[in-house]
């Protein structure tokens, strides 16, 4: 029973028989953000039980908004009190790291989720069903698509208010994910945010078959990948005899002090380490949607309810990249020479693959999906930089990207025809003539995706490429540049479609949303331009936040 057995939150219970169980030491204040959200999630479940159906929508909305806002406030508070810079520490007995990247990413995730909640709660877009406002979620998840059950549910005006607690749970997981400081926490967090997302994907009101299909695909592949991740965890544990990041890092770079024979034996076996590391990496790359683990992305993005897609696209990426950064910078720095070339390859195929396949897409949501893949590639370029600049650039990019994404998907929810959202590109023809404003806003987002100067997309891309170049990955920058050139092509295609082609007579209309979605879009545009024109403040923030606690 070495000391290593005791340090971990999870193993305190496993000591010799004692008269009193020492309670683990938890720094509640540092963990406040996560605790608030998870608490709200639990409350949300209770609300579903006790509050009458009529009041649920509002109470749930209120609950989740306040929770997220409060959590964000908590993050700001922590950051303000220097927990992100000077007072970084490992909380909850080594389970959770409270440091710059963690706080920055948690803040980003919370804001993104806040923006996303508004799109969740939008009830003006769909035509009223039987005089009742309806949102973009199915009336009753269990009912068969098109069956009597469904009609009855619609008639009764049911709404799936469970989405809010589900989302809050997901957010909890996402908050923990980039902060996780041992492999088990990492795994738990992964599952905690994955499972609700699987469900959320299945809850679209229109096109339910696609929605369910998306859920199944996402679920099966997700589970598959988490199995790999878990096996990787097992192997790493086998190698280092511990799941704690710090400990594994020590063992990996051989700075570990007390070496018992078992450890010595396993340490000798690099295969464990390398295979384990690779599998872990794969699990995370799946979540960020890097080639070749990306194939779920387009289908899921297309099938899921658009608000969920936006939420997923933004928040999941942030969380996953956070975890990836921590893994590579904290756990496996000793393995740079092994994983860097591999990531090079992944980054290259991701950038090019995403951009190239996107060229021929015909569905706006799939298009954005592929563009998100390409962007994952760009971010990876920053991850590879292996410098503080690299970290900060990635943080900045993630912040910038998530708002553009949510905004873009929010606009997608507005463009509708009889069959709900009109996501086929051909229907977007001439949108610029019908409603210049919406088209212009979407154009702004597209330009940001394309990385045109004076948008956040450019600032982010520049930061990442700069970091990569300084990190000695010049070739990667060149390829990235080429990829963005290819990518520019299809973003521009959409703009051409919207502005330069004649509107179709039976084309879709742009629904006028409630203030909720408007806020989301407005925030998206504001952040996009702000980060584009005057990114300095946020760059500073990311710069300060770029120190991992070890």
């Amino acid at each position, binding site marked *: 029973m070495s000391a290593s057995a005791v340090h971990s939150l999870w193993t305190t219970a496993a000591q010799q028989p004692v008269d009193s169980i020492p309670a683990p030491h938890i720094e509640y204040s540092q963990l406040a953000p996560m605790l608030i959200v998870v608490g709200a999630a639990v409350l949300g479940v209770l609300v579903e039980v006790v509050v009458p159906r009529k009041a649920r929508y509002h109470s749930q909305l209120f609950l989740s908004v306040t929770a997220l806002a409060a959590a964000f406030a908590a993050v700001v508070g922590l950051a303000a009190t220097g927990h992100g810079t000077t007072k970084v520490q490992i909380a909850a007995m080594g389970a959770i790291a409270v440091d710059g990247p963690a706080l920055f990413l948690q803040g980003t995730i919370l804001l993104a989720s806040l923006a996303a909640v508004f799109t969740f709660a939008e009830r003006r877009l769909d035509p009223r069903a039987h005089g009742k406002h309806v949102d973009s979620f199915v009336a009753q998840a269990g009912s068969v698509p098109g069956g009597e059950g469904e009609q009855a549910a619609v008639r009764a005006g049911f709404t799936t208010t469970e989405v809010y607690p589900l989302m809050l749970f997901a957010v909890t997981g996402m908050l923990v994910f980039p902060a996780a400081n041992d492999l088990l926490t990492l795994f738990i967090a992964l599952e905690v945010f994955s499972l609700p997302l699987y469900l959320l994907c299945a809850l679209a009101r229109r096109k339910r078959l696609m929605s369910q299909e998306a859920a*199944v*695909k996402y679920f*099966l*592949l997700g589970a*598959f*990948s988490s199995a*790999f991740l878990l096996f990787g965890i097992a192997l790493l544990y086998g190698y280092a005899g511990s799941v704690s990041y710090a400990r594994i890092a020590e063992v990996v770079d051989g700075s570990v002090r007390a070496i018992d024979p078992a450890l010595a034996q396993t340490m000798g076996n*690099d*295969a464990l380490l*390398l*295979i384990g*590391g*690779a*599998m872990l*990496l*794969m699990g995370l*790359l*799946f979540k960020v949607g890097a*080639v*070749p*683990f990306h*194939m*779920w992305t*387009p*289908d899921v993005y297309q099938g899921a309810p658009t608000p969920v897609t936006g939420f997923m696209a933004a928040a999941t990426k942030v969380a996953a990249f956070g975890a990836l950064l921590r893994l590579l910078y904290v756990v496996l720095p000793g393995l740079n*020479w*092994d*994983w860097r*070339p*591999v990531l090079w*390859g*992944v980054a290259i195929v991701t950038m090019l*693959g995403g951009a*190239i*396949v*996107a*060229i*021929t*897409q015909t569905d706006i949501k799939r298009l954005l999906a592929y563009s998100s893949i390409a962007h994952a590639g760009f971010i990876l370029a920053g991850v590879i930089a292996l410098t503080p600049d690299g970290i900060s650039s990635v943080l900045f990019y993630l912040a910038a990207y998530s708002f553009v994404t949510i905004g873009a998907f929010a606009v997608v929810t507005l463009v509708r025809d009889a069959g709900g959202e009109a996501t086929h590109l051909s229907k977007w023809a001439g949108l610029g003539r019908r409603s210049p404003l919406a088209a212009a806003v979407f154009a702004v987002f597209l330009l940001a995706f394309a990385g045109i100067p004076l948008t956040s997309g450019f600032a982010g891309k520049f930061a990442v490429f700069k970091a990569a170049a300084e990190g000695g990955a010049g070739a990667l920058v060149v390829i990235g540049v080429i990829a963005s050139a*290819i990518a520019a*092509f299809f973003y521009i295609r959409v703009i051409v479609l919207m502005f330069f082609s004649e509107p179709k007579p039976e084309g879709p209309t742009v629904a006028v949303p409630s203030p909720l979605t408007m806020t989301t879009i407005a925030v998206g545009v504001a952040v996009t331009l702000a980060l584009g024109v005057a990114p300095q403040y946020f760059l500073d923030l990311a710069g300060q936040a770029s120190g991992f606690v070890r």
Partner: protein
Amino acid sequence: MDNLIALLIAAPLLGAALLLCGGRRLDGAGHWVATVLAFVSFLFGTVLFADMLGKAADDRTVQQQLFSWIPVEGFQADVAFQLDQLSMTFVLLITGVGSLIHLYSVGYMEHDERRRRFFGYLNLFLAAMLLLVLADNYLLLYVGWEGVGLASYLLIGFWQHKPSAATAAKKAFLVNRVGDMGLSIAVMLMFTTFGTFAFTPVLESTGETSEAMLTAIGLLLLLAACGKSAQVPLQSWLGDAMEGPTPVSALIHAATMVTAGVYLIVRSGAIFNAAPDAQLAVVVVGAVTLLFGAIIGCAKDDIKKALAGSTMSQIGYMVLAAGLGPIGYAFAIMHLVTHGFFKAGLFLGAGSVMHGMNDEVDMRKYGGLRKYLPITFVTFGLGYLAIIGVPPFSGFFSKDKIIEAAFAQEGARAWIFGGIALLGAGITAFYMTRVMLMTFFGKQRWQPDAEGEEPHPHEAPRTMTIPMILLAVGSVGAGAFFSIGDRFVNWLAPVTEFEHPHPVISVPVITASTIAVLLVGAALAYAMYGTRPVPVTAPRGSLLTRAARRDLLQDDFNHVVLVRGGEHLTRSLVYVDHTLVDGVVNGTAAGFGGLSGRLRKLQNGYARTYAVSMFGGAAVLIAATLLMRAV
């Protein structure tokens, strides 16, 4: 006094500006404004001339620096003038003949609704031509050079609604551009060699550079001269240029502009003196053109084209003389001036004939006009006598001197060029006699014109006859006036140094043979056109005749080689640009599209396929990491 030089140019320039921008308001009086301004500048010219006569022979050169034109590091181009005997000669010729022709045009263009613009162009021409001869550096000369080109373009194509006219104008400009290319390269070469292109420094420092360089410059200048003065091989435009109104042909394409090439060569004498090879080239060009033009002149039935051929050949004489160096310069200029008189006169006569014959130009449809156009007949006749060089008319003096100079060389050259010059005199006599006979003598062969209107030949109005008379006076007396006591030679000597030619055979013999040759030519022409009736429709004629009618196939050559070739080239280039240059780009785009389409197929919608790709990816990942460690 010096400012007069600027005013000299300013006057016609002002006229051009007024008439071209003035709009309809000036339609009424415009032509008089122009004419007056032309005379004004002639007046200035005479004043300056008087002033110059007042000075000693060797410091008659006046320099006037107006303002710095293009000041760039290491590059000074000024708007500055140099008025010496040479340019003075031209000033008087240009403004004098120019004013007369303005006057003539008042009558000639009376019924043209675009008369105002015509006079605007004429004034523009005067200004440009004066700038050309007054400039004190080659760049400013180049400005005038192209300026006259523009004016000639506008005036040749004055009747733009006639496609032939528009084409002729374009052709003239383009051919001239080829020459201009030579001039501009020459200027650049001067700049790189001497660091300047002002006359005085360049011409004074010719000794400091290699002969090769000077030869190069000389040849380029010759190219320019060929373009402007319609010398072989750039002569083809002059014939077509007759599409322009007759006063234009008289002023620009006979008296002044076409002689600019001679001016250029004479002005650059110092360069040529130091570059014998270039000189030889000049002589050859002159000799060839001399015959070339003469032959064409023999074959044309269009009176103006016949005269154009003659102009070509006469300028050939001048160029030949200019190529002979100090022994020839003065005579070149002298012939230039006399030619200015009689050729302008001849053209105006032709114009008056056309004026009386419903603008008919085919001499085969003239005949017996001497009764109906007495003044024209007389003035034309005097011009005729002058050009063929009958003593004591002006042509005799100038041309005879040139022939003497041509004989004044060493070895075979003397005989070759002398012989050619002599032969030319004979042919000149032949074709001019032909023109004379076909137009004024013989039976009336008048034909109704396109509207079926019978011609009623009548003498032209006074505005037209007066200039003709004055020019006739010039063509009678000028030569004698110049040659008595070598007035003209001495006058020019300070600028173009002069040596007495020493012909290989004695002067009287040359003179005698010249007269003999021209008598033969005239007699021959009389035998052919004076004794038997002239058919109204041209006989097929000998091979040479037919070739000569087609400008000795020069145009056909141009058409086949340049025009056709050019069209093929451009068409194929357009194709290349579209398929190759553009194709590469579009091809890349298409390539990416195709690749995208193929990669897209992998996304086949089956979850298990996705799982496979994940599994494979994981395998690769693991393998790669292990590999990294292994290596």
